[in-house]
């Protein structure tokens, strides 16, 4: 297994861990952090491909993903704050109003 394959395995493992975190955890903030983990896995795979192919496009896309992730967090956290202020809890199960 050469360097590229090992790094891709790591990136996919991080992505799956992030996905597991979003599905499995109750706390809204930890779910957000798992989403960031997923984004980091994707970034790692992009940088690995950019390194392997010698193409600068990978690095550019990584930079754009940084910007998008920052913008996303800047909105997601205030939304979580407002929700938590209404229900006084961060438990995701308390927001099951649309269920059933």
């Amino acid at each position: 297994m050469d360097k590229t394959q090992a790094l891709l395995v790591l990136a996919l493992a991080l992505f799956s861990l992030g996905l597991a975190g979003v599905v499995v955890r109750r706390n809204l903030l930890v779910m957000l952090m798992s989403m960031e983990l997923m984004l980091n896995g994707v970034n790692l795979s992009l940088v690995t491909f950019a390194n392997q192919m010698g193409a600068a496009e990978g690095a550019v896309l990584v930079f754009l993903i940084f910007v998008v992730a920052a913008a996303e967090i800047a909105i997601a956290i205030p939304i979580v704050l407002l929700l938590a202020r209404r229900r006084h809890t961060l438990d995701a199960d308390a927001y099951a109003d649309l269920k059933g």
Partner: protein
Amino acid sequence: MTWLLANLETILLAVFGVSALAGGVLVVVLRQPMRAAMALISTMIFLGGIYGLLGVHFIAAFQVLIYVGAVMVFMVYVIMLLDPRDPAFRRRFSPLLFPGAAVALGLAATLIRGVAPGTAPAAAPAPARGFSLAEFATAFLNQYWLHFELTSVLLLAAVIAAIAVIRVARGDHG
């Protein structure tokens, strides 16, 4: 000693990779959100180290600067402000624990089998190398200027949305 120096890159890559993975596991598993945040910060810094080893130092700098220096600061700020006696701490996992874990494992296994089937890959079309900031900047502003402008519009939208959220928050309890 010379073996250590000759294979230093591989050893460091292995160490950083295993530590990043351990941090990722800790993010999903730890009960307290602040500790999960610290684990995520350590994962991000180790990933920055991996980017540095791959030769893209400016991406490593941006990773630490944007992710750790802005995104995680915001996350730590919010965890500091919210009530620590939240019941979500006591019940850590949702009812979807086993199906969720099984799906994630299956996804990981499928994807990893597709990427690293056990046979050596064909030779890469260009030799693996890192980039200098000059190359990146030229590519960024010559070919991808439209993406750059669109992301600045996205950031403007994020700023306006954040101000709107503050207005709503003030209206709620004001």
